[in-house]
């Protein structure tokens, strides 16, 4: 139970950070935190049954559900791609506007959108 509560807190921290933080780099951090909370949720939920790592060898018994782990490997890769791309875009935004504040970026680009 305690791990679920901690994960919900982690999830909410991420979600709050994306919405409330003005700095776009912090927003990207928050997205990573949000993503990680769901990754850990999958792993903890998948390990409810069994105790051993799902490596199919002689003598290994009582393994955890391998599917969530396989899924999360994919999700981690996607998360890394998104973080990298978001950071690249943030860098370009900084070069154009010389600020990382989302509201200031909005204002600067709103006046001359093209």
């Amino acid at each position, binding site marked *: 139970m305690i791990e679920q509560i901690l994960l919900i807190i982690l999830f909410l921290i991420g979600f709050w950070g994306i919405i409330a933080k003005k700095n776009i780099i912090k927003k990207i951090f928050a997205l990573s935190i*949000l993503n990680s909370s769901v990754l850990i949720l999958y792993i903890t939920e998948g390990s409810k049954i069994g105790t051993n790592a799902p490596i199919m060898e002689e003598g290994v018994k009582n393994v955890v559900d391998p*599917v969530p782990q396989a899924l999360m490997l994919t999700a981690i890769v996607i998360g890394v791609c998104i973080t990298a791309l978001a950071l690249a875009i943030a860098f370009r*935004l900084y070069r154009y506007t010389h600020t990382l504040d989302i*509201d200031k970026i909005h204002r600067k680009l709103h006046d001359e959108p093209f």
Partner: protein
Amino acid sequence: MSHSDIIFAPIFLPLLGSALVFCGKSFFKGRKAKLIEYSAVFIGLGLPWIVLFYLLPFILSGTTIQLVIGNWFGGVGIIYRFDGLAWLVIFLGFLIASAAWIYTLGAGPRGLGFNAIFLIQTAALAATAMTADLFNLFVCLEILGITSYVLIASSEKPGAFLASFSYLMISATAMVFFLVGLLGLYRLTGTLSYEGIAAGLKILPGEGGITAIVSLSLIVAAIAMRVAVMPLYGWLPDAHALAPHAISAVLSGVLIKTPLFALTRILIILPGGIEAGRLMGYAGAATALVGVIIALAQKDTKRLLAYHSISQIGYIVSAWGAAVTAGLSTPAGLTLMTAAFLHAMYHALFKGLLFLTIGTTTDLAGERDVYKLRGAAIILYRGGEKFPVTLLCFLVGALAIMAIPPLNGYASKAALSYAFKGSWQASVLFAAGIGTTASFIKLSRIYWPQKKINQSSPKTGTIPGKVSGSVQISQIFLAIMCIASGIFASRISLIVKKLLSNGIIDTNRVPPNLFSIQNLEKTAITVTAGIVLFLIVSTGSGKKILSLIRNRPRNFQGLFLSFSLGMFGLTLWMIYKS
């Protein structure tokens, strides 16, 4: 490797093409690299056409090819299903992608990065249309997303980076909620394929109860965000308006519809899916009307078109939602679904055409403001178009979206109003049609000559660049498709219906009588009302109202607020209905 593995060709050929693009650049230089790049694009966008037409007779006769990737056993491997729906969506994707790619030859963006990403996006479109596995759907949607963030930003406009960033953040957050929903369904049923989940939920007491319902609503909300239904549309206008023109055509034409049709597969078999479809249908009708009102208020040409995409996707979603509610196996549901797909296809054609022609015009004129740009026809003439191809193509597109016979927009809107048969949605869509007419009269004004010819305008002095041949070819191609699909609309509706019903022979056309007096009368009323509406909004107070709508506050937080509210509303609705 068996015979039916050929259904993977529309996914693997573009991926192979994008790999070849990189290889060509790494190992060769100059002419050879160009040659390899073009042949790679031909492999990616050209060869799948042969496969599609080879498969058409099988699909028309009602065969559904279902395969598990890598020959794993069913419970573990990823299931792909190639049926009529998949064929139609993939056909549409390749049609628009091919036309858009030809356009980029003349107007950019060019280069290896662009071509490779564009091909990956096309592959992901095909995969999204075929997949029958919930986690694979997540991966496909993420690939579609990541490629579109890159392609939107590739126009190198500062605003495009902001649009891309907003889209990335909202969509990545939505996909996290998708994953949470996926975990809920996986925990209940222990499987990821749609059929497995549906079968698993059926044997659970109370069909999985509240966990299943909340999980499904999280998944539906995340996909609805991609489709840009009403409360979740905020990311779209900037992204579509600031992307390169060819990419706008693909994004508006195909990319927002593919997740919708992929969602069909989930909603028709999972318990509670019907209610989600019903609510999305209602939201779609509202989207059609609100989208067009905001579109009418815009002053940037491409943003006006982007809001029209929202409005038109509202038409599609409202018919689609009603079809899911009625059930695809019933005649009424099938008619609605046919109308929804016809409008999706025709919208892709005419909206793609509009984005390309407006893009050509505004690039040449160096001005995108509807109120400032005038005399664009003359500018195009001075840009080297002795025969006004772009102007005529724009007119075809504009008349099609205004639903003037015999163009294709008329056929699909008649199909929609026939399928709705006088329910309240029909009246909402009719009202939205009036707004569409008014706003396209407003947009057409950029081609009207200036009032004073010798007005000193610095923009008309120099014409940057010319209209190139490939730009004209892709515009003419789409314009011809618009006219042809309008003329042969009844026959096309039969084919689409047959494909969507997986080969059931049904000779009722949608609508049964396309050029009936009633339909023509309706068109006349819409056009007249549209002109009146245009005159009203051209007055001083009308312009004030429009600028209020245009300058309504929009910010980054608003995107997340509307997403959270939309998701919450959907969850409450589904708990209430179950």
